[in-house]
């Protein structure tokens, strides 16, 4: 097209030679500021490659002059954040857990740390508001399988329930039907008895039969008065709170097949400070003893 070079008669600017419907494109040069900006960015990028990590290699990448890495910066910042709380952290591990409440500064530190640790580690099972679900205890209420004092909560979190920790707590709800310990009818009766402890509407005969079965098979764990025993994590069967569900079908299923949920042990996964923070946070939810 070079032979097509011509000047536009109005502006005096050379045209590109392209023409559409009689309209010709002017070959106006780029504005100078624009060009300079582009050159500057080119120079900038070369400097950037030298100074900062930039180019991917086969197994590695160019590190840049100062060895900067955002991961390294993050690690530093995390360490600094932990460091910034060193006084509170030290106080929290040396103090008796049950005394922390009387030290507002440390207590506040524990509650906020515990809140976020809970959100990250516990909320998947216990719910974001610690409200629990069937099989996962509600931590807001005042019913505790293994005890609701700070020290008891601390142990539960640290060692877990039926976990792989050697100090873990174990409580067994046997599968009375599957292991052929009871007949179907007996299970039905004992379910009626258990229900009768907190609500009415069961047939008196069934309840009477169930009570006998209960005393023989269940009282050793749940207690003669059915108020539960914390050494075994055996729930109180007379209150309004049901761990797996309080309708008859669920109770029958619980007795027939047994229950054995696992609470992981957090010792070894989280440091002691975090476990203590979570303990105090859970205790503060309103049900702590």
């Amino acid at each position: 097209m070079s032979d097509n070079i011509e000047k536009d008669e109005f502006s005096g600017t050379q045209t590109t030679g392209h023409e559409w419907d009689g309209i010709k494109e002017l070959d106006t040069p780029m504005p100078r500021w624009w060009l300079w900006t582009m050159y500057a960015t080119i120079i900038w990028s070369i400097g950037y490659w030298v100074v900062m990590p930039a180019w991917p290699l086969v197994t590695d990448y160019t590190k840049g002059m100062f060895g900067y890495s955002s991961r390294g910066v993050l690690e530093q910042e995390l360490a600094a954040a932990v460091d910034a709380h060193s006084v509170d952290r030290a106080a929290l591990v040396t103090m008796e857990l049950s005394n922390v409440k009387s030290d507002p500064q440390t207590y506040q530190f524990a509650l906020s740390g515990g809140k976020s640790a809970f959100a990250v580690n516990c909320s998947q099972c216990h719910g974001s508001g610690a409200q629990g679900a069937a099989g996962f205890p509600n931590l807001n209420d005042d019913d505790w399988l293994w005890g609701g004092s700070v020290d008891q909560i601390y142990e539960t979190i640290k060692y877990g329930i039926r976990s792989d920790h050697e100090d873990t707590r174990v409580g067994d709800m046997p599968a009375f039907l599957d292991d052929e310990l009871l007949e179907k009818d007996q299970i039905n009766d004992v379910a009626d008895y258990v229900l009768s402890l907190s609500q009415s509407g069961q047939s008196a005969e069934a309840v009477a039969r169930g009570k006998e079965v209960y005393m023989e098979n269940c009282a050793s764990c749940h207690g003669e008065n059915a108020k539960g025993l914390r050494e075994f994590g055996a729930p109180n069967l007379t209150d309004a709170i049901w761990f797996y569900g309080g309708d008859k079908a669920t109770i029958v299923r619980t007795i027939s097949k047994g229950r054995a949920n696992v609470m992981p042990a957090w010792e070894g996964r989280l440091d002691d400070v975090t476990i203590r923070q979570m303990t105090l946070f859970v205790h503060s939810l309103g049900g702590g003893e």
Partner: protein
Amino acid sequence: MVESAVENVDVRPVNKKENRALFERREKIQPKKARGDFRRLKWIIMAVTLTIYYVTPWIRWDRGEGAPDQAVLVDFARERFYFFLIELWPQEVYYITGLLIIAAVSLFLVTALFGRAWCGYSCPQTVWTDLFIFVERLIEGDRNARLKLDKAPMSMSKLTKRVTKHAIWLLIGVLTGGAWVFYFADAPTLLVDLFTLEAAVIAYASVATLTATTYVFGGLMREQVCTYMCPWPRIQGAMVGDESLTVTYHGARGEPRGPHKKGQSWENRGHCIDCNQCVAVCPMGIDIRDGLQMECITCALCIDACNDVMDKIDLPRGLISYDTYAGQFDGNPEKKLKVRLIRPRTIAYGAILAFVGAIMLFTLLNRSILDVNVIRDRNPLFVTLSDGSIRNGYTVKILNKLHEVRKYHVEVTGSAGLQSWFQKEGPKDHTMIVTVPGDSVSSVKLFVSIPAANLKSKSTDLDVTVVDRETGETDTQNTSFKGPEK
């Protein structure tokens, strides 16, 4: 012209109506010094506004122990705004909204009455540009000297003048930025910190930014800010009515214009002698004889200039004067200026002002010094306790706006069998006395439980009443108690 007492200036307005280009490279405007009533008025307003601006942060105000003693202070760090007697908390920013409404409507009112008086006299851009031009004249001389200096080749003396001028401009800029930051911190402390390099980075950054903007806007860009960057001229243009006062050239009296020799008769010609003094003094570089223009900031310097000319050639003043749009077609120079200040439009603006002002005053006078917020826990919505009763959790925030410790008694009412307890530092606490330090907020966790049998529906109304133990001041907040579906 030889005989004329008036010098004829060679000046070209930037936007002559005969050949107004869509786009043109900016022409430098070198305004000539004006003398007269309006010029004096402008000096006075400049002195007053600048004094207010620079001095306000230094006024002290005793608020007692622990509170800043600065009369006007925007304390971002502690989230308080102090304005003499008034002390605002963040949740009271609606007062700022009120202030903005008042400012806007005042501007409308002033514009309806006097045209763009704001632009001409009290706009910071105008004030600082005027100050910068004053400095320029002090160092480089008036218009002619400056034009000559512009054309002269670079020399030692030109360089000295230029450097001095820009140095002083920058100094004014630094002082401006410096004054601004004093509104946001204790002024005397900050002043020392600034010099000992101990002030916050943000303080230096603010000073630097405001120095740069003051220098660039006031010294270098000047009228371009008003013409191209500022939205007010266009908005105010819409506020100006037929009866608003604006700077007006009385064409009927002035035309046909032309040079005039002393002794010549004024028969069959206008009073404008085409001396261009009015154009030369105009900081916006326009010719008011072309009629009211968007660029005109109604600074009235052209009025001063032309009155000066009229005095010299023994004609009555007021060829250019403040007049209404309606008035400019009336050629009678003797006619007394008659302005109707009270018109439907000004009455409407006045009424809005009075209304908003009254609301502000009322709320300010009845402002409570105790504020209570009750926030119900949403997760979980409610908890069933082992005895079957339902429990809800709340966070009660008590704001104590006084500068002294106050004790509050808190009570919850609304349902039979209701039980409440507070979780404070110690174990469960049923006493419900909350101590709030002065000028701060305390939040306490409140648990309320109600036997399930007493709940009539899944939502029950509760009242949280907070009583000041000493003064008896009471604040009751309504909240709800959630339970299972009934």
